[in-house]
């Protein structure tokens, strides 16, 4: 069923299992009881950050497959992505997993864009099980987008901290005891001419607002437990709430807006505006949020992963930061 950018999935594909693994710093997260694995080494025992990143993806995917009671040969398709150039960590992890694979890039929104794509594949009824998700590793992402890790640059209060973490799940045909994908809204690229790469929250908030507004307008009358954005951080979340307050979207049945980036590290000022990265939303959505859905603590939620579509080159050439947000509505009956 289609309504311009919003799609409803009649087959109600279910997320049958998930796995989340994070790095050592993420132990501080209030979500950490819901992480399956907390590694003590930020390189995961590998000799480069990038190898560590690939290892994290591979191990988390294997865990998601194992928790669902499957083998890697049961997986019809692996959809995933990360933030490193040419997505080598995901590509290399897919080499080890040896499943059919398609790489996806929506920056930090890949956690949801991979789930939406997986839902479409299942809706076509040609596949049984699809592995989806995304990951990020602090060192390998920071070195690419910003400065060397040990460089003493001062970050402003709007700065965010890239999460070392991975969240993957397996989407399959409807199972009554598992949350399912009710509908999804595919985001448009929105550019409000923000140029500061140390203030991604402000750049991404309009994209999140656009997608949320569209999704809610197509699902009027639906009551949500909450809407949770990806990695707007404290700054971006405050701006999003202001945009919603002044726009009339607040008249829809949502009064709880959350952000996984803003909540990820609790209230520790060291992390400034909060967490970011494609592993941020993935490890929160497919860890604690999934667990709470399973326990039927929540019944209907809207997950809106946000991504900043910049490169270090585009920023140096003076381009603004275009952003995207993809939304997926999960339901637990």
């Amino acid at each position: 069923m289609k309504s311009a950018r919003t799609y409803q999935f009649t087959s109600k594909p279910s997320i049958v299992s998930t796995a989340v693994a994070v790095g050592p710093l993420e132990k501080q997260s209030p979500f950490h009881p819901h992480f399956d694995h907390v590694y003590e080494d930020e390189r995961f025992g590998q000799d480069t950050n990038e190898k560590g990143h690939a290892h994290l993806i591979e191990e988390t995917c294997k865990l998601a497959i194992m928790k669902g009671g499957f083998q890697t040969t049961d997986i019809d398709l692996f959809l995933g992505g990360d933030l490193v150039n040419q997505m080598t960590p995901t590509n290399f992890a897919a080499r080890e997993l040896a499943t059919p694979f398609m790489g996806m890039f929506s920056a930090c929104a890949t956690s949801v864009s991979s789930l939406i794509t997986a839902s479409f594949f299942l809706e076509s009824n040609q596949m049984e099980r699809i592995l989806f998700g995304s990951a990020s590793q602090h060192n390998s992402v920071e070195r690419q987008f910003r400065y060397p890790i040990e460089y003493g640059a001062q970050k402003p209060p709007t700065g965010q901290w890239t999460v070392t973490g991975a969240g993957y799940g397996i989407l399959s045909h409807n199972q009554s005891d598992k949350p399912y994908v009710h509908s999804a809204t595919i985001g448009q690229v929105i550019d409000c001419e923000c140029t500061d790469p140390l203030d991604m929250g402000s750049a991404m908030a309009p994209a999140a607002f656009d997608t949320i507004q569209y999704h809610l307008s197509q699902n009027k009358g639906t009551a949500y437990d909450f809407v949770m954005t990806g990695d707007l951080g404290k700054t971006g979340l405050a701006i999003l709430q202001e945009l919603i307050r002044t726009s009339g979207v607040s008249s829809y049945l949502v009064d709880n807006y959350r952000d996984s980036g803003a909540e990820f590290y609790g209230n520790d000022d060291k992390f400034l505006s909060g967490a970011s990265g494609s592993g941020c939303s993935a490890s929160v959505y497919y860890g604690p949020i999934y667990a709470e859905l399973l326990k039927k603590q929540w019944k209907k939620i809207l997950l809106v992963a946000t991504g900043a579509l910049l490169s270090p080159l585009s920023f140096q050439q003076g381009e603004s930061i275009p952003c995207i947000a993809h939304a997926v509505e999960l339901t637990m009956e």
Partner: protein
Amino acid sequence: MDAKTYQQTVDQIAPKRPVLKNCMTAFLTGGIICGIGQIVSFVYMYFFPFTERTASNPTVSTMVFFAMVLTGLGVYKKIGQFGGAGSAVPVTGFGNAVISAAIEHKTEGFILGVGGNMFKLAGSVIVYGVFSAFVVALIKTILVQMGVISW
């Protein structure tokens, strides 16, 4: 959404850089680093055969060495977050820029990695430092030749 009105919303809500506080911590951090540099300089003058003029070279090397150790131990980035320009402007900041890049690119080998990237941040300091030194020297030479000032 209109980009201009949106920027106004951002300006209202997004937290600003605490400029005054940053200036004060930069002053403090930069002052402490320079104070340590002065002590090092005195050490070279009192315990080694250096004059006030010649002590500057070993002092700079020693300060870069300190920055190297602190960068390797992961301390300098914390000083940088606190001190801002105060830890970036002195020569220790230059050392930190060189060494952090060298550490970062070690995984790509010593030639293409460390050698090729060591000066990726500090390179512009060298380029424009040498160029401005050349311009200043040129101006001074002309003024001396014209008899306006003397060496």
